[in-house]
């Protein structure tokens, strides 16, 4: 039996969760045909991921077939989406998420390398760009936007955690408790944030004076930068 070097791959549970949450955000914000295209693309991604997993267990033929099918699925998804988008704004809105989810998956699939924080950032950043565009085009209700923002943060946190754990402990180490508690805490904060904003919006009526609004915006800007983590 030979020496077992540490395999620095992103932790599986957190990584999978990150991709799933990001996919959820993309699906919720997509509309009509776009949603179908996204679904096909995600299925394709799942195929590629499964293909690579099987590859590790040295069933190379099956893994190639699966990964190939997955790749074709991704392409079909994107093409179907491009062809049948209900309008240019819908296309522009969902395009970043459609590219971002595969990027995030590529950063976290534990196949080779220790994952990439840059790709996690780019992937989740693209998904969040879709959230911003949805807000800009007014194609989603404020509540959906709120939830999608919180979910984007959760996806990013889980992805970063997966890479950090992979670098420090490798993927053979047992880490599920730690991952569960971490992501649970982040989820709680997200729920609290969404709930708080939702409650405030329901309770608060009446518009503040313009001067008060401006001053508050400036104060928040200063405070957030001062408190940056």
């Amino acid at each position, binding site marked *: 039996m030979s020496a077992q070097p540490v395999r620095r791959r992103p932790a599986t549970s957190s990584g999978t969760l990150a991709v799933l949450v990001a996919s959820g955000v993309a699906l919720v914000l997509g509309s009509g045909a776009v949603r179908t295209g996204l679904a096909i693309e995600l299925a394709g991604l799942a195929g590629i991921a499964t293909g690579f997993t099987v590859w590790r267990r040295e069933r190379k033929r099956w893994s190639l077939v699966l990964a190939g099918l997955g790749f074709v699925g991704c392409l079909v998804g994107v093409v179907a989406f491009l062809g049948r988008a209900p309008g240019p704004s819908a296309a522009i809105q969902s395009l970043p998420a459609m590219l971002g989810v595969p990027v995030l998956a590529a950063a976290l699939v534990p196949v080779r390398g220790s994952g990439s924080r840059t790709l996690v950032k780019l992937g989740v950043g693209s998904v969040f760009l879709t959230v911003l565009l949805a807000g800009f085009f007014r194609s989603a209700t404020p509540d959906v936007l709120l939830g999608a923002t919180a979910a984007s943060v959760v996806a990013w946190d889980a992805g970063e955690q997966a890479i950090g754990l992979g670098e420090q402990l490798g993927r053979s180490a047992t880490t599920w408790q730690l991952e569960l508690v971490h992501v649970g805490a982040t989820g709680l904060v997200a729920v609290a944030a969404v709930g708080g904003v939702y409650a405030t919006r329901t309770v608060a009526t009446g518009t503040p004076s313009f001067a008060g609004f401006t*001053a508050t915006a400036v104060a928040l800007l200063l405070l957030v930068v*001062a408190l940056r983590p």
Partner: protein
Amino acid sequence: MTAAPSTENRVAPVGRVLLGLAGILVLAVAVVADGPVRGTVNALLTLFGSEYLLVAVIGLVAFVVGVAAFVTSREAATQAAPPDPERAVAVPAPGESFDEMAADWRCLLPGAGREHRAAVQERLHRTAVETVAVSDDCARETAARRVAEGTWTADDVAAAYLAEPTDATDATDEEGWFELLVGRQTPTQYRAERTVSAIADVAGVAQRDEGAGEGSEEADGSEEADR
């Protein structure tokens, strides 16, 4: 905010403190005293011309700072690097430094590489003389002569390599150039390895890659005879 005993955050940078104080001040004034704020905002409004422009400028500043934070966030991420205890601590193998010396690219330089080539040759020469002296049970001088004459081994490359002063055989034979061209070995490396094999034959040390694997026993045997 936590008061953590870290060198980085024990004392918050002055910039942060000022920013935080300014933020609190603006917020407090906005909540407590509406008058001054209204006055300032109205002055700014006349400056910018419209409500939207004023708000948009604030928004733009936030946007730019946000993008900057996004771009720099990766450089900021730091985490501890625990040790890698899985493998035995890595040390070089005995003799690895000689291989590196012979494979050194500087050995390829025509003029400047002379010293490097000479060092390799010198070490092999010394070992060859010693080995011949032991195996033939003769004086060091006799052994040195045999090495100089090249009669100590059947290997032409090794014999020629140690027979000549450094660089006399710079015109490497075809085989040597072939090794270099296929990118496997430098001429020095090639000749050094041939020479080591030749010395090992004389010394009776079986090399592991030649299959026998009984090297130490044979070598010890010759030593016992020597004593």
